[in-house]
């Protein structure tokens, strides 16, 4: 017992520690508003982190109390990232709809769940009836996934949910006045539809460690091409486009930039590009050839970045964190993580980490919020939607910690979507911006930082890449993930012998950059239903080419 007692005391102390600390600290929980009435509850499923949840939970409770005189609470449903949420909503809704359909005496055949959530109406008449009945019903008494709102993720994820019939129009009549401040599109990208509403903006940029770059003899990067430098081999952290639609969008921006450059190099100025895009059928053949060439350049750039990559990660904070540690020299990160890490430096080392949004290659996408079919608390959910687009809600994204009307516990440092938070030539908006500016965490007046300025500097030409979303994602997967070891081995051999520019490596590089599809055929191939089959073919293609490229490169003399 003499030996056991100290252990038991220690064990008790360990258990007591968090309780004691918690008791000593001032409690910063959700304020319950004064005033009576039953508490309104809204169920929100989200991939957002604890900081965003805590601020929006607190903000909504206060806003709701001021607006209605009643307390309110957000119940967050947190199950992981967007891929888990997509799976969860589909499975919960299908399961509830099944019970509802069986209750009405309908038949539930094998494959009914698939048909129910299919984008196109099924051909089978029974399934068609189910498909229509499902999409015509929006009543929690009939079926519900037990969730009111889907908050965050990318527009791709919400668009997919919309096509599955999971979303419903929150304002079939008139939209709230605040939405007038949210453009439906900008720079060719959609920011809101009838079913989903962007409420914050995201960009991807390059986060880098100045010490590591200095050790490697490299300057600070400012364009995507810099991540393809052979000296960065094994030192680049990349987010995985197969697991995040936002990163695929970011890579799409990179490809668009390469096409724009190729088209410009072929002698087509902005004006003539506009003409060609208005009427592609009558555009000259050189124009189409330049697009195809630019697309291939874009893919080659992605392949080289992939060859330099130390990893492709599904976790958005791994890249900035490891760059800050010096474990990787540079990487692709979402803006707020990058900017935060760049300023979050220990005393004495203020310039350790930097972040840059590559000029002309940064697409500005939105983080939507959408109302789910069969929402159990529709009225409260509509109020939450309204809150997020109100000035009070938008301020939470970008105000400094502790500023009046700003976040109370965590600075979120994200881009709000409303126009009045950015510089504008319109007098009313400019006045509003001047009012916000002193409180902002980041200087949105700087055109290299402000999301609207970035969006305006980037022109998204839908025809160039909009049909290539799946192709970009799957080419990266086949070449850089599935055939990744072979790609990196070939790249190592090329880099050891003078790099991709060396004449001796011309044959090896030609093999490496060869693609199984071109700009024209890529969307056709990915449009085929059997994804596994073309992925297998592409992986085999890249593996064979990379092995051959490695052999070709190794036949040459290594250079020091």
């Amino acid at each position: 017992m003499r030996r056991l007692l100290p252990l038991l005391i220690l064990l008790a102390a360990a258990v007591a520690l968090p309780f004691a600390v918690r008791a000593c600290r001032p409690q910063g929980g959700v304020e319950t508003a004064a005033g009576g009435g039953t508490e309104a509850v809204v169920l929100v499923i989200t991939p957002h982190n604890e900081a965003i949840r805590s601020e929006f939970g607190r903000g909504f409770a206060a806003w709701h109390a001021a607006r209605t005189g009643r307390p309110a609470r957000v119940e967050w449903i947190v199950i992981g990232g967007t891929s888990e949420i997509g799976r969860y909503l589909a499975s919960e809704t299908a399961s509830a709809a099944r019970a509802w359909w069986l209750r009405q005496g309908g038949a539930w055949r094998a494959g009914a769940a698939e048909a129910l959530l299919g984008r196109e109406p099924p051909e089978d008449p029974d399934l068609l009836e189910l498909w229509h009945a499902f999409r015509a019903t929006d009543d929690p008494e009939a079926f519900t996934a037990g969730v009111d709102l889907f908050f965050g993720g990318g527009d791709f994820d919400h668009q997919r949910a919309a096509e599955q019939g999971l979303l419903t129009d929150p304002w079939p009549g008139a939209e709230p006045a605040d939405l007038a401040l949210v453009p439906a599109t900008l720079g060719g990208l959609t920011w809101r539809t009838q079913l989903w509403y962007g409420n914050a903006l995201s960009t991807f940029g390059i986060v880098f460690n100045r010490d590591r770059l200095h050790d490697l003899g490299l300057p600070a990067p400012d364009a995507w091409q810099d991540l393809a430098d052979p000296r960065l081999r094994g030192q680049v952290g990349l987010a995985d486009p197969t697991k995040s639609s936002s990163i695929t969008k970011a890579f799409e921006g990179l490809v668009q930039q390469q096409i724009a450059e190729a088209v410009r190099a072929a002698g087509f100025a902005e004006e003539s590009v506009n003409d060609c895009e208005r009427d592609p059928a009558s555009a000259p053949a050189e124009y189409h050839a330049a697009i195809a060439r630019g697309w291939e350049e874009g893919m080659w750039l992605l392949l080289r970045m992939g060859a330099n990559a130390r990893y492709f990660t599904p976790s958005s904070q791994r890249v900035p964190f490891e760059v800050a540690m010096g474990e990787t020299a540079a990487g692709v990160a979402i803006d707020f993580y990058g900017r935060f890490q760049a300023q979050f430096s220990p005393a004495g080392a203020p310039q350790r980490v930097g972040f840059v949004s590559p000029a002309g290659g940064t697409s500005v996408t939105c983080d939507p919020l959408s109302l789910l079919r069969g929402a159990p608390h529709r009225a409260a959910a509509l109020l939450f939607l309204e809150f997020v687009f109100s000035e009070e809600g938008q301020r939470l994204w970008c105000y400094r910690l502790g500023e009046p009307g700003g976040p109370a516990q965590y600075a979120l440092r994200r881009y709000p979507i409303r126009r009045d938070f950015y510089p504008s030539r319109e007098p009313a908006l400019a006045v509003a911006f001047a009012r916000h500016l002193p409180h902002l965490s980041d200087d949105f007046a700087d055109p290299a930082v402000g999301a609207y300025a970035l969006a305006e500097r980037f022109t998204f030409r839908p025809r160039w890449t909009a049909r290539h979303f799946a192709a970009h994602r799957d080419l990266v997967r086949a070449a850089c993930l599935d055939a990744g070891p072979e790609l990196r081995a070939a790249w190592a051999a090329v880099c050891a012998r003078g790099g991709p520019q060396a004449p001796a490596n011309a044959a090896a590089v030609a093999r490496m950059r060869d693609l199984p599809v071109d700009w024209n055929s890529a969307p056709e191939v990915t449009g085929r239903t059997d994804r596994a089959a073309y992925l297998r073919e592409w992986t085999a293609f890249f593996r064979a080419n990379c092995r051959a490229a490695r052999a070709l490169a190794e036949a040459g003399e290594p250079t020091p």
Partner: protein
Amino acid sequence: MMPRGLARCIFVGTALTLGALFLVPLWMVLSGGFTEGGSFTLKHLGAVLGNPIYAEGLRNSFFIALGVTLLANLIAVPLAWIADRCDFAGKKTVAALVLVPMILPPFLGAVGWQQLFGQYGTINALFGIERDWLGSSGIWGVILLEALALYPIVYLNAAAALANLDPALGEAAENLGCTGLRRFRRVTLPLIAPGLFAGGILVFIWSFTELGTPLMLNYTRCAPVQVFDALKEIGSDPTPYALVAVLLIASAALFAAGRLLFGRKAYATAGRASTAARTQRLTGARAALALAPFVAVLALALLPHLAVILTSVTEPGAWYRSVLPQDTTIAHWAEAMGHPLTVGSIANSLLYSALALLVCLVLGVAIALVVVRSDLKFRGALDAVSMLPLAVPGLVMAFGYLAFSSRLGNSEWVKESGMWRNLLDVRANPTLFLVIAYAVRRLPYMVRSAVAGLQQTSPALEEAAQNLGAPPWTAWRRITMPLIAANLIAGGLLVFAFSMLEVSDSLVLAQRQDHYPITKAIFELFQLLGTGPYVAAALGVWAMLFLGLTILAASQVLGRKLGALFRV
């Protein structure tokens, strides 16, 4: 042998339980890999088998598993043997500490290794070099790090098996002139084989399907990473489910092969502990020599733990190109301990893990009884199925339970009753499903420990008690239970510790803050901008501390209660 009627009853009961709690939810997810347009198809399976990168992934995983199992045995068996045979100053401490490497909290191990072996980490700073340790380690790095994390499983099982040995047999061998290594090889090894098999097969299947280490070392061409990559993809690709099925079949086959090769021959001894075990008291240089291997293994295996402890008190960014942190703070501890998530998550984890342990104990012992003490035809299949949860990726199982709960939650009788809703609908309260998930996923440890214990214990002892008039239950409670207690406690420790550290089910099933277990709290803290990993490290260290103290206290209790039986 058990009466056949009783054996059949237990068999049917455990098989139904495993079917309902494991196979049904599993199939709810895996069926996605075997259907197209509502009808059964083997197309996706064919696609997986025909893809060379998956074949290569399976080969590499097999190689990793083989390497890890060998290395873990090479580390653990000599240590367990020394601890069993010798007594020396500091033995109690090192013998308990030797188990600590297995309690590394999720997400933080990578941070620990990077602080030490990163390009700007301790080792490079110490020696003034610029080596990319983690980026260049490849498959060998994976094997080494996994073996260092998993050898305690082998150690625990080996120690329990050695504790079960009848010292008289060793002495008899010695009397007949069989000494030293020869005695170990010819006498000890065959007698402790069930324990070694139990530890070995657990480590083998674990490392065959382990995800975290290869992800950290960016070694992507192995089956678990391929499954994870495909599962996490946006969209509804059937490939990962077909791939999981292949992984499961491969694991079951490897288990069966392993049992055929190593697990069959078990010598049960009747006279166990009839004489007190004789340990050799070492002093001076010989004691130091016995202590050295423990210290060496601990120094390596506890490195990431030490790094995580240091991280939890490091000013952000202050452990950078330096051997140790340049600036420390207790702010992360204050933040972690005082965070609204912390207190609730600790209480939740204790509850879920304790209940899971209870479920595991009942189910595990029941399965082991049928497997060892009956001659039923399909007992081998039951044994194999009870091992499979170890091979199923966490995310797959989590979505299986989600689908299962959702199916139940949408039935009228559940919807209308608050009690049933709280029990069966994870959206209302995930406790039941989390307990089931933890228990099922950790069941293999309990089954293997219990099987090993029963195999080493002769049924003659229980039969003798019954001959003397003890009813079967009393004979079981008073004779067999105490004899296999060492094994059950070893298994129980593994179940409890790994339940506390479980990730996938915790992340997916505990959807609301009130229900978060500690691993989800660590995950949430990890995500906070800037200080996240440091605050998460503080909570992680708390978890390590708690589990470490639990293990130490358990070994003290055991030491007192079971005397010579269990010397961990």
